């Protein structure tokens, strides 16, 4: 376990894609199948795109090893659980949500991940300029999943609020081509962070919690031009995905992310139900995902599965990233 230098590579064209993963104990290379999946979708286009993948679980793991993060995790789950009914599905959905967002309670963990993401974005834009593409002309897209959306949102908010970061949309000219958020728990975290109130250390550094409203990060020029961090912001979630703010096809207003200006997709997910009960099936799937603990696995029936989100939006992704 050590400091990992950000991934660096020459750009074959003017485009780059950064993947930011979600929950799991992902090691570098674990998501190679997902990258190959996107490359297959893009076809020959993929050859002209520099693809990056940020693996940050080493940070979460270091914190978990040092401070026994389960103590905080339990507290978090209890807050989430208050909003579900007392059913088995409600309990496991709360545990699933807590498993996703516990780093929120550890200021140095979440700031370290934000730092790693900012460093990776800085390296990406420097790779672009080294390859002859000016920052203002670079076409960088981020595809984030699950908790990766929170870290991405925080990094982009920090960049937009900090002109000296080198990544601010107006003052640095660093505007993403696409910000594609799949199964985002940003609103869920905003709710839980607000509910925990003063129990969250340094809440002021969590933009998604401390801001009066949840908006697309942006910077304003002296003439009043609002420059968003991305030209296109897409939010996709499945209607069976509790992390994305849905429980058994019902949208949970307190957990579903609605950024003004986002392009929204609600995927109609299907389960091969056990004994005719979708609820029981969902409990089993979420429970097995919780017990997994190892590297993320592609489970076709998991409504939170990243690969399924990518597959369902293959044509969209090809259009957005072209």
């Amino acid at each position, binding site marked *: 376990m050590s400091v990992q230098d950000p991934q660096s590579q020459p750009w074959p064209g003017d485009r780059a894609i950064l993947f930011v993963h979600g929950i799991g104990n992902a090691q570098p290379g674990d998501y190679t199948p997902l990258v190959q999946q996107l490359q297959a979708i893009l076809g020959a286009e993929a050859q002209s795109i520099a693809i990056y993948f940020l693996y940050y679980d080493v940070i979460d793991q270091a914190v978990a090893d*040092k401070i026994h993060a389960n103590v905080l995790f339990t507290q978090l789950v209890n807050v989430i659980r208050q909003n579900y009914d007392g059913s088995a599905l409600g309990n496991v959905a709360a545990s699933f949500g807590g498993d996703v967002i516990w780093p929120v309670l550890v*200021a*140095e963990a979440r700031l370290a991940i934000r730092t790693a993401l900012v*460093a990776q974005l800085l390296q990406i834009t420097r790779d672009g300029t080294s390859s002859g593409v000016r920052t203002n002309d670079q076409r960088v897209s981020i595809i984030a999943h699950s908790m990766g959306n929170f870290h991405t949102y925080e990094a982009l908010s920090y960049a937009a609020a900090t002109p000296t970061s080198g990544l601010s949309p107006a003052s640095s*000219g660093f505007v993403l081509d696409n910000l594609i958020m799949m199964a985002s728990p940003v609103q869920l975290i905003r709710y839980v962070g607000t509910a925990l109130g003063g129990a969250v250390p340094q809440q002021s550094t969590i933009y998604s919690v401390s801001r009066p409203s949840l908006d697309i990060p942006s910077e304003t020029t002296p*003439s009043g031009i609002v420059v968003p961090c991305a030209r296109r912001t897409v939010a996709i979630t499945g209607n069976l995905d509790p992390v994305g703010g849905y429980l058994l096809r019902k949208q949970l207003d307190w957990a579903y992310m609605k950024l003004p200006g986002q392009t929204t997709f609600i995927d109609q997910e299907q389960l091969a139900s056990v004994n005719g009960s979708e609820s029981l099936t969902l409990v089993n799937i979420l429970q097995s995902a919780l017990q997994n603990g190892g590297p993320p696995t592609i489970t076709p029936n998991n409504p939170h599965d990243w690969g399924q989100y990518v597959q369902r939006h293959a044509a969209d992704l090809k259009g957005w990233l072209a």
Partner: protein
Amino acid sequence: MRRAVRAASVMLYLCATPLIAQEPAPFTLRDVFVNLRAAADRVNFASSNAASDAHMRALESYFDRVRLLDASLGQVIDVYVGRAMDLPTIAGWNRDRWSVGIVDSITTVRLIANGELYPMLRDKLPKSARDSLWPPLDTLQDKLTAVQLAANKDNLRRFFIKYGPDAPRLNAAEVLLNYVAQLWIPGFLPSVNGRPTPNELVATYRTTDLTATRGTSGPFQARVVTSAQLGLRRYNFGVDCGTGRFADLLRPCQQSAGGFLVGRGDTPLNNPWQLRHRGGVYWARGKYHVGAIFGSDRQFVFGVDQQLLPYIF
């Protein structure tokens, strides 16, 4: 004598600097404004955005007044990100001019240039024209991203000193204490830019410390004692911490000090709640610590920091 040597060194450095600095005419802030004006003229920026055009020209006059216009872009970025200036920078211009106003003004120039003017250039001028106008702005951005990338990497390096495999593990009491300290005590939170705090509270219970005592007539005998520590740990985030021979003693990545308690007798596995009979102070460097017990029964205690049962003691 030392003062004279130091003064001579500074003089030598100042004299040698022009010889060392062989870079071919680095861009200055004046170059940025010259090119911005040229770009603005090419797209008639004054007619489409008169306020920002006037603002930009006023800022050029401002930087001229504070004598920053001829500073190299490396020096400008040092001021912009609040990095300590090097000696030539300090010698080159007036430190009194280093103010928040300068930082805000640089931001405003960048906002107008990248947020308002460049989109017009992209719409109206071919790439070759943009390439001839933008190099000073590209250099400014390049130097900023280089400095910030290094700063972010350094923050991560510090994080892994504090949370890496060689860092002390916290027990449940310490997790709770440090969590509460983060909420209530200044100095226990990371910086808003993500730099970890070097401070950590210590509250340990150790069953394997050693002491040496002499019986009524016999020689010194080593005994295992139970101890408790309550103190403050400070991390040393120096780039060479934990390196070299005897790193824990000579260049430790953390040390701590505070109060030290042992039980009534020199026995292992005492109840932690009964460790209040004898007290003193302790000092730890790396994973080693020594404690001194005060009172009529003075003793020295030595130990190694290691959790026998994870998260407990």
